């Protein structure tokens, strides 16, 4: 057997091993011993199906507090170029994927405060919040009106 073929078989076997481990994890949540979690997670991510769904709509918003105490909206999406769904998922997942010494939403509020300051907006504070409202077949935003909508403040700076 040629050396290149041998190397090819070795690579393929290793690759298939990781893919099989990921498949086992995908199907049965079984973790094959010896497969490092980052590799397994990465490989699992190549075959994870569309599985989660929500029965309410959510959206993340940022606001800046003016000198008179009134909050105005900050265009959060001008800082992140992502489709709406990915944008929402990112903020949901943010808390699980950051350094444990940081409060991720607080950090985002702080960074927005600093960046808006650079853009000439002198806010007293900035905050990040999530809004939730019932779904509608007529559109994503249709029920985002005050009697139906509720919101939660996730982080404020300072």
């Amino acid at each position, binding site marked *: 057997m040629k050396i*290149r*073929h041998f190397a*090819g*078989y070795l690579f*393929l076997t290793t*690759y*298939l091993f990781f*893919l099989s481990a*990921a*498949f086992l994890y*995908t*199907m049965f949540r079984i973790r094959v011993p010896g497969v490092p*979690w*980052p590799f397994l*997670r*990465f490989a*699992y*991510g*190549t*075959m*994870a*199906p*569309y*599985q*989660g*769904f*929500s*029965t309410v*709509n*959510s*959206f993340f918003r940022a606001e800046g507090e003016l000198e008179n105490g009134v909050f105005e909206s900050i265009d959060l999406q001008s*800082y*992140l*170029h*992502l*489709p*709406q*769904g*990915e944008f*929402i*998922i*990112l903020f949901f*997942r*943010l808390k699980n*994927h*950051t*350094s444990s010494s*940081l409060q*991720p939403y607080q*950090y*985002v509020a702080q*960074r*927005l405060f600093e*960046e808006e300051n650079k853009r000439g907006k002198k806010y007293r504070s900035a905050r990040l919040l999530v809004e939730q409202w019932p*779904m*509608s*077949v*007529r*559109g*994503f935003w249709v029920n985002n009106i005050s009697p139906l909508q509720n919101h939660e403040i996730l982080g404020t700076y300072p």
Partner: protein
Amino acid sequence: MKNLFSKHRAVDSWLFALVPPHALALFRIFFGMFLLILWLRRLPFLPYLFANGRILPPLLDEGIPSFLSPFPVPPSPEIACLLYIIFLSFLVFFILGFYTRTSAFVSFLFSLYYWFLAMRLVEATYDRLFIIFLFILSFSGAGMTLSWTMRHRHGSWWAWEPIVVFPQRLIAIQVTMTYLGSGWQKAWLPGWQTGEVIYYMLIGMRSTRFAHFIAALPLSFYFYEVMSGIVKLFEFILPFGLWSKSQRWFFLGGAIFHILVTCVIGMWWFLALIATYILFIDPEKVFMWFEKRFPTPAPLR
């Protein structure tokens, strides 16, 4: 014993045969163009995604080997811009087949860098797949036709040299496993046992106007259950169908599936998987198809 030996030879040939490069080269061009569009769309937001002006917190806790920990520190906007331009240039080189392997490998390194820096937050299947594809292509013969290399070596973009089929098989195997995992798990995921996933997907955070239009139609929930069943059945058999003799119907089905996903929930990036279907076809057949329409100039044959 003789049978075993012949089987080994068949596997050996399936993995390492020398074949015309046209299937892989066409994939290289479509995939490269797709990547270029994907990354160009992120360009206006570069300071906020990949530079130290970004609003996202650092990602240092989980899953990053310690020797890579210096990399997720975002650079200044100027350096980030320079790095991005270099990355996009290598993607263009990759499409043109200019030092294809090097271009693919550098693009792979950049993709990995951006993955650790920010894209990992989104945790999308497509970003991972594209990183894997670039890595595999970095040791492939994808630049052995329709490339600057061939123009430089033989005087024509259409000239070609045979390549080892191994990288092509690897990408096809990866795509098969992607469909296998995402298709088979739907067989037991609770939301997929009724039409719930489909229904809420149509009116959820990713849904398009077209999706809302369908959801607003006076359809019973039975419609969504049937749709869920069709998707599950199709994805269950798709990984095998792509390798079967009736593969063209599965290519068509897969293409329709991804186009519908794009129309309904806007996940257009999976359209890149349609380009991988060419890698499931016998490279000789792709070559003959290609040769019939775009004959190689006589002196280069």
